[in-house]
């Protein structure tokens, strides 16, 4: 490196790195520090308790419940979001007629793209409030109202959505209803991501495949999907983080923030309860640190599994 360049670069980076260290890394370290204390959150009194908070984690029933609920989202949110996004992207790009100009998307695909992407521009809180009205558990709710009008739902027995802990396939119904929102709000973004990736696949590959007699299904599974592998794998990691969060939806939409009766408890809601309701910040920080470690391990694992040779065109 030429003389002076190092100093020049350092000068430019010092401020942003400093800000990052102070506002991001330092709070992280503080939280890790607090996780070793019995701090209550309202005073400057705290006692060092070593790893006690971490031992407590493993005997906490609520954490165990929250863990499995997060695992449910971890599996289902990426799976359904990516499947739906791929399906939509495929239809919008190569799902339509073929003519002299080659293969194109379904009619009006430009408009659909905008509509499907729309949830992405809304804040999650707005989405949650909007879905509260859609899921409202009486005749004035959007879904209940429509279903009652056409006679599919008894007026005296509306679907209770967020208030329904009854298991469906072994998972409380409220989690499935939350999943619907998560998938709906996420699919649009990944559809655009996959669309962009699909457009970079040369059309002649498709044309060659069609000449060889491949149908729509074959072109999707034999050409599109393998060539999108990289993008899908990144999407999977991103969605994994979203699945480990889910806090806004649970906090705004479920009764008692994790209810009914703990049926939608997730890591974040347990952290919230311990820190802000129970006044056990030390313990809450321990849960948060554990969650952070879990997230990092998961991401590392994911990137390792999907790493392989790539095709360039």
């Amino acid at each position, binding site marked *: 490196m030429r003389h002076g360049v190092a100093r020049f670069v350092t000068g430019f980076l010092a401020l942003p790195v400093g800000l990052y260290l102070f506002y*991001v890394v*330092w709070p*992280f370290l*503080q*939280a890790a520090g*607090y*996780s070793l204390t*019995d701090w*209550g*959150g*309202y*005073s*400057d009194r705290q006692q060092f308790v070593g790893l006690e908070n971490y031992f407590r984690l493993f005997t906490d029933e609520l954490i165990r419940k929250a863990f499995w609920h997060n695992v449910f989202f971890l599996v289902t949110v990426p799976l359904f979001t990516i499947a739906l996004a791929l399906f939509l992207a495929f239809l919008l790009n190569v799902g339509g007629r073929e003519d002299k100009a080659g293969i194109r998307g379904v009619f009006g695909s430009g408009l659909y793209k905008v509509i499907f992407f729309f949830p992405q521009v809304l804040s999650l809180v707005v989405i949650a409030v909007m879905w509260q009205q859609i899921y*409202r*558990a*009486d*005749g004035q709710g959007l879904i*209940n109202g429509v279903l009652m009008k056409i006679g599919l739902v008894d*007026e*005296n027995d*509306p679907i*209770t959505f*967020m*208030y329904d802990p009854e298991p469906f396939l072994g998972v409380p119904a409220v989690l499935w209803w939350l999943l619907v929102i998560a998938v709906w709000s996420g699919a649009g973004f990944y559809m655009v991501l996959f669309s962009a990736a699909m457009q970079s696949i040369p059309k002649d590959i498709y044309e060659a495949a069609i000449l060889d007699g491949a149908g729509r299904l074959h072109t999707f599974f034999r050409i599109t999907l393998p060539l999108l592998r990289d993008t899908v794998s*990144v999407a999977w*990691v*991103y969605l994994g*983080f*979203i699945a480990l*969060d889910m*806090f806004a939806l649970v906090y705004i939409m479920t*009764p*008692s923030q994790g*209810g*009914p*009766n*703990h049926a939608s408890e997730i890591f974040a809601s347990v*952290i919230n*309860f311990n*820190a*802000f*309701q*129970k*006044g*056990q*910040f030390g313990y*809450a*920080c321990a849960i*948060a*640190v554990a*969650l*952070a470690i879990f*997230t990092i391990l998961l*991401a590392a694992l994911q990137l390792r599994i999907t*790493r392989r*040779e*790539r*095709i*360039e*065109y």
Partner: protein
Amino acid sequence: MSVNPDLNRRTLLRRAAAAGLLVTPAAGLLSACAGSTPSPSNDNAGEKSNDNPFGVQENSAVKVVIFNGGLGDAWAKEDQAVFSAKHPNVTVNMSSTQKIKTEEQPKMATTPSDLIMNSGADLMDLSTLVNEGAIEPLDDLLAAPAWEGGGTVADTLLPGTVSDGTFQGKFFVVYVAFTVWGNWYNGALFSKEGWEPPKSFEEFFALAPKIKAKGIAPYVYDAVHGYYPRWALMASIWKSAGKQAVVDIDNLKENAWRAEGVLPALEQWEKVVKDKLVLPGRLDHTQSQQAWLDGKAAFIQVGTWLKNEMASTIPPGFEMKLSDYWTVSAADKAPKDVFAGAGEGFVVPSKAPNKAAAKEFLRAVLSKAGSAKFAELTKSLASTKGSGDNVDDPALATANELMKNAGQDLVSVKLWDFYADLDKESQNLSQELMAGRLTAAQFVDKMQAAADKVAKDSSITKQTRNA
């Protein structure tokens, strides 16, 4: 065509983006825990006198945070006027919010506001505030002379206000509103149909079929916030099993939930649900209150802030009337005790920079002029004596009437202020009972188990009540 998975520019960018996103879910949660080193606060005392018992310093400023919920915040501005009349040189910075904990908790360990109205769904847990030494004992406020003279501040308060605000033998929370809870009904509808508001569950079950025959659901409640149905359940338990039973429950006494009278009270509610007397659906507080105003349900149980909260949508001709919670059986130990108590509590943080002015402001809030304005504007009683005397409001009058015929004790429950775990558990179980997923017996078993767990947990500071 194929390349090795070396670190080229694209993968570098991809990983960097992944790493950046990676920290985001945990970032908010982790940094939520972070605080900073506090600085000690000094109270610069001014001259103390009978007119200025806490020595408020001239030209100082006091920051007051008001909870802008069911009672609104217009009354607080009247209190500010009362305060400023006596202390024109003290600046009052008043703000109002619904997010008390979200906005105030992060400042508690460093530079909190001077006076915080700790109320609403987003309030700071009281037992934690007390245990952490984060709020100031206010016994000197009780002993101070009343704003308009003639006795001490304590003398002006309604019964229950001091004991409700007392934790571990010290007075910490100044409740300014006096709330009466019970079953509300539309007087116009009842007199039109010739219905008598029931006094007991038995009468309610007899009346219910007639109400149903008119296409009205006999009962509705807030199914979103577990503490709404819990008021009703605890009131029934108090009436049926008596005061001592609830005191034992609050004190985590062994088998307190299995005391005589507790189960029968809960069984009445189980029957209400089983007989399908509740409006179908799961509504929150304002939705259920609106459904009741729209004539979809005959009874709703809630406190006296109801009228103010729903003021803009009360239909013409609607007569809001409050009746007492229903008695459980002839064997009831305290059938006449009314669920009433001081609510909407103010706290002064220990680290507040201007505690003297905060206390002085509270003295103004509890003044005759301030309380009368409070009652007038909110249609609720203040926690001082005689605040509603000059308010002409039919809904408030029924609450006054109820209080006049009340038994010797007021129903009061400390459980949820004492222990966050039991607060959450009792809310959850109340919702489950009212959703018909728990029987009364299961409710008792689960509450007892939760109470035993808290009693055994050494990380939780125990509290006791004597009366």
